[in-house]
């Protein structure tokens, strides 16, 4: 699979009906073909049945006609069966295509895109919205074929006797108007119903988010009552829908029977006048049913409108442009790993987070990045691996601009350890080698040892091969695993974003020692909130109000600047920055 493209083609964003059909052209065409075949047979059947009846009644041998009739019936069965298969094939293929596109696009949008979308909302778009949009494609095809079939039925009626056609048309117009009126009422009542249902769902979500308070207050019963308070209103809305459905049922059925009786009466006159044979009388009754078939498509129209809304929700995300443009340089020339930021500015939500920052990290050095919460430390760190792009300025690794490099190649060289890592992969081993699947077992174990994670991995039922789902980890264990993953990742630069905040003193000291001993030569950018962490570094970069206020050793700064000391009298473990 190619890496996420820099800009989506127009085809990706075309989710009109035609665009959806183009996602599974062969299956959609097959659905249409089988539907047409079944419709064609349906249109022929009444005529052939009529012919057979007439032959029987006039004592002519009906053998051939009956054979034809049986043949038609069998073909219709086959057409319906294969049509059903084609329909499901089309739906599944369209849904799968939509899902792939959405997935790849969200990854292409990257970290900046996370700001706009909550994971849960994206999952709904991927599952529910994609399925509903996809199932509209065959529904549309079938709807069109049904309408054409109805037209065919009307023509056939006309062919039997023009009076039948005329009666049908005069009768059908009020039926359509009535149906339209009633359907509008159904949709508005249903909208109200769904809104009330949404209120209850909203209250439940609310209560769940406060579950700890409810638990501590012992008020579960009371809260259940509060969530269910709108239930009587919901029931009232529900009954309202039933009222309209009731009207639809008896009124529409009566009108349809009226049309039928009228048409049969006209046909009866035809039989009495010798214009229409008994067989044709039967055929008229059957064609009438076909011609009335288009009235069922009113439901389909509502369904299509709903599916349209669903497709639009997916389109919303696909229309966003990713900001990261891929460079093309395939390799970073060998180098010691010097990281430079030149006049880098970043603006988030109209606020200046970084303001023309100049910072040079010498190769192989461990540099601590300190500053009060919200000063942009994490933002600066994200620039190194192009998880974020600066609005102005450039970031260089060994004098090569990072945006000139192929992103995958760049990220091989920059490893990240986060304060709240998310582990991906099936087993612990896969999680640790996620960035480098080709890593040998010894390298993975060495990384785990450096990150002080061997003790608790050893205690897991299958050790490194334990599935992640079977092993809930504490905050400190999770951080150590994230650290091990970063160590195993390799590369010239290691960024630690508050990656030891959940560790106790002893473990943190061990980790610090192990990193210094085990990763000599790797440049390290360490975001720190504690004085001891800053003290261990070679240099400290002090970030204040979006600018580097000083770059010196911790010792020097501590002795000379009271403002510097004030930075560390800050909140431990607080992270107000938006990543």
């Amino acid at each position, binding site marked *: 699979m190619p890496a996420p493209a820099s800009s989506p083609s127009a085809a990706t964003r075309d989710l009109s009906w035609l665009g959806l059909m183009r996602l599974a052209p062969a299956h959609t065409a097959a659905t249409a073909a089988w539907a047409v075949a079944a419709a064609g047979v349906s249109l022929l059947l009444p005529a052939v*049945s009529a012919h057979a009846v007439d032959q029987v009644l006039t004592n002519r041998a009906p053998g051939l006609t009956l054979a034809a009739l049986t043949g038609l019936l069998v073909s219709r069965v086959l057409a319906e069966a294969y049509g059903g298969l084609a329909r499901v094939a089309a739906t599944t293929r369209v849904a799968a295509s939509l899902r792939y596109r959405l997935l790849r696009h969200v990854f292409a949008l990257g970290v900046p895109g996370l700001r706009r979308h909550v994971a849960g909302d994206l999952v709904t778009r991927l599952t529910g919205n994609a399925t509903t949009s996809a199932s509209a494609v065959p529904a549309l095809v079938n709807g069109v074929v049904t309408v054409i079939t109805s037209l065919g039925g009307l023509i056939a009626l006309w062919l039997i006797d023009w009076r039948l056609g005329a009666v049908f048309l005069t009768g059908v117009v009020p039926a359509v108007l009535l149906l339209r009126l009633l359907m509008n009422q159904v949709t508005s009542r249903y909208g109200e119903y769904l809104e009330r249902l949404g209120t209850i769902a909203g209250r439940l979500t609310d209560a769940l988010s406060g579950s700890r308070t409810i*638990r501590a207050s012992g*008020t579960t019963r009371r809260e259940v009552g509060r969530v269910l308070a709108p239930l009587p209103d919901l029931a009232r809305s529900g009954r309202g829908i039933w009222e309209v459905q009731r009207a639809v049922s008896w009124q529409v059925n009566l009108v349809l029977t009226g049309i039928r009786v009228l048409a049969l009466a006209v046909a*009866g006159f035809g039989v009495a006048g010798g214009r229409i044979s008994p067989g044709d009388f039967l055929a008229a009754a059957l064609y009438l049913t076909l011609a009335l078939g288009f009235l069922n498509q009113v439901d389909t129209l509502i369904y299509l409108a709903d599916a349209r809304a669903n497709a639009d929700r997916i389109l919303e995300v696909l229309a966003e442009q990713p900001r990261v443009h891929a460079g093309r340089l395939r390799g970073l020339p060998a180098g010691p790993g010097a990281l430079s930021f030149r006049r880098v500015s970043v603006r988030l939500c109209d606020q200046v987070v970084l303001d023309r920052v100049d910072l040079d990290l010498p190769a192989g050095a461990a540099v601590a990045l300190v500053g009060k919460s919200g000063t942009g430390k994490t933002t600066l760190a994200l620039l190194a691996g192009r998880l974020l792009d600066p609005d102005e300025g450039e970031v260089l690794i060994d004098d090569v601009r990072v945006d000139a490099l192929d992103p995958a190649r760049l990220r091989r060289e920059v490893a990240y350890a986060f304060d709240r890592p998310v582990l991906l992969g099936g087993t612990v081993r896969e999680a640790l080698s996620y960035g480098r699947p080709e890593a040998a077992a010894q390298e993975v174990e060495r990384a785990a040892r450096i990150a002080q994670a061997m003790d608790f991995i050893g205690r897991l039922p299958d050790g490194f091969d334990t599935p992640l789902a079977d092993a809930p980890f504490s905050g400190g264990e999770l951080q150590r695993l994230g650290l091990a993953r970063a160590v195993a990742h390799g590369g010239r630069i290691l960024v630690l974003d508050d990656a030891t905040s959940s560790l106790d003193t002893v473990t943190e000291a*061990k980790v610090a020692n192990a990193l210094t001993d085990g990763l000599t030569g790797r440049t390290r950018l360490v975001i720190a909130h504690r004085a001891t962490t800053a003290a261990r570094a070679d240099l400290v970069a002090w970030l204040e109000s979006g600018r580097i206020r000083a770059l010196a050793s911790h010792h020097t700064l501590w002795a000379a600047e009271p403002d510097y000391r004030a930075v560390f009298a800050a909140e431990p473990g607080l992270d107000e920055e938006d990543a």
Partner: protein
Amino acid sequence: MSRVQVHRAGYALLLGELRARRRALVRIVLWSVVESLPSLLSGLVVAAALDRFLARDVAAGLGVLAMLLASAMVGAIAARQMYPWLAEVVEPVRDAFITAVVEGTMVAATRSPTRPDTAGVARLTEQVQSVRNILFVLLRTVRQVAFTFVAALVGLSVLAPAAALVSGALVALALALFALLLPGLAVRHKAALLAEEEVARRAGDAFGGIRDAIACAAEDRAVAEVGRAVEDEVALDRALARATALRSVIVFIGGQLPLVVLLVAAPWLLREGYLTVGEVVGAATYLTVSLEPALRSIIGAVGSWGLDLVVTLGRLGEGFADPEPPEKGSTPAEDRYDLTVHGLTFAYGPGAHPVVHDLDLTVPEGGHLAVVGPSGIGKSTLANLLAGLLTPQHGDVLLGGVDIGRVRETDLRRMLGLIPQEAYVFAGTLRENLTYLAPHATERELTEAATAVGLQPAIDRLGGFDAQVGVGGADLSNGEKQLVALARVYISPARIVILDEATSNLDPMGEARAEAAFSRRQGTLLVIAHRISSARRADLILLLDGDSVHLGTHDELMRTSVLYADLVGHWEVSGLASTSTPGPEDLLRTANI
């Protein structure tokens, strides 16, 4: 509940509700019989009318057709009368399911200490709605079709008994084949549903880990993981479709074969005088206009909607609440509220590292304790243990000398007030939110509490205690929500107040004011510190540092614990007092200066 009970809970609820509405169901059946009158008569009428028209007796033919119209009107009236009874059955079933689902979710969420799954709420409401819709379709459409079917069969047997016999036999064969097909369909249907849920789960994992996947240059891997689940779902959906396609064959056997048989036998029937022309046409009408579409509808509906219902009922039933366990404690609380902890040990799993190990602690009445330590080390767990919301593996927590596990639940909840970091402000007035734990609080007490914790500016901004807040009401900042939660507990009769980082969204001054208010208030205060400044204000500080635990005043800890000094922002080049924990000297030696 046992596995079988869980599996059956959904069906049990549905059947129970239906049983409770027997009268309505009987009425529905009776009206349905009347409603299907037109279907019963249709073939007969067509037969009779055609015969009359063939005999050129137009008037009689029209008269017969008029009878059909009349029967249609009767049917319409019957439908009109029946609908309220349908509503009477379906709506309460939906209500019962929503109640069960809400209870189940809430009880499950409040019984376990882990974060609840709010994404599941969307799924649940979809499923309950699905149950209602399916019942709606089954009761409206399938019922109508079923009665139409039976009526047509009756009509056919009146018109042409032989045809009815043949048709009936073939229909019975078709239904038998369908019954054999159903279990296989159900299995595949459930597999397809589970595959869809797997896609949702993997997509959730992938979207939650985008930052990490990109940092590891492994986006392709993450996408492929979800892609595999998508392909699995496609395969299972198509397998289901293949099994479903057999339905067409079954409909052919039961619906269309009889017509062929009739037409093949027609010459002989007519010759022998068993049937008139009209009767042949009438029988053909029954078969093609009524029976075949009805059979197709029933098989279609049961095969899809019916299976949907079965699978959804099963899934919903899994979320219903277990019956309430018997109350753990029954001892009424003492008047004293000092807290004593002996040898407290707690770990989340059998092999896991203990969060607290052999902890001894005494907090006298009116004391003020702060708990500090690195994030994620277990401070909230300790708060839960002290509040009796978690049971330790070893050791005990005594409230006024009584084991906290044995105190009566209602007394315990009244005496202990725990405020978590996520403040709970529900949709309602400010007054309702504030008097949540103290329904009889007076206006004066409310104002006093608001002023004490610093909520008064927010109240002035919103316009008084009767302002609507929460979902659908005025917007409150995170800090203001925390102030509401603080004021709520302030007014309550709680004697031991535990603030679990409950001031994290307030600025340092607001935090100091709130803590001071609780300190002044009669009772014990336990603060899980968010800012280290909370520790300075406390009488006693408990420092959690992995395996070691330090207890002392601010000055004592500054002298004895490197971590505490570090957390306070203190750092010495030399001269740290020796401690029992290894490492501090190592830290100094490895500092690269």
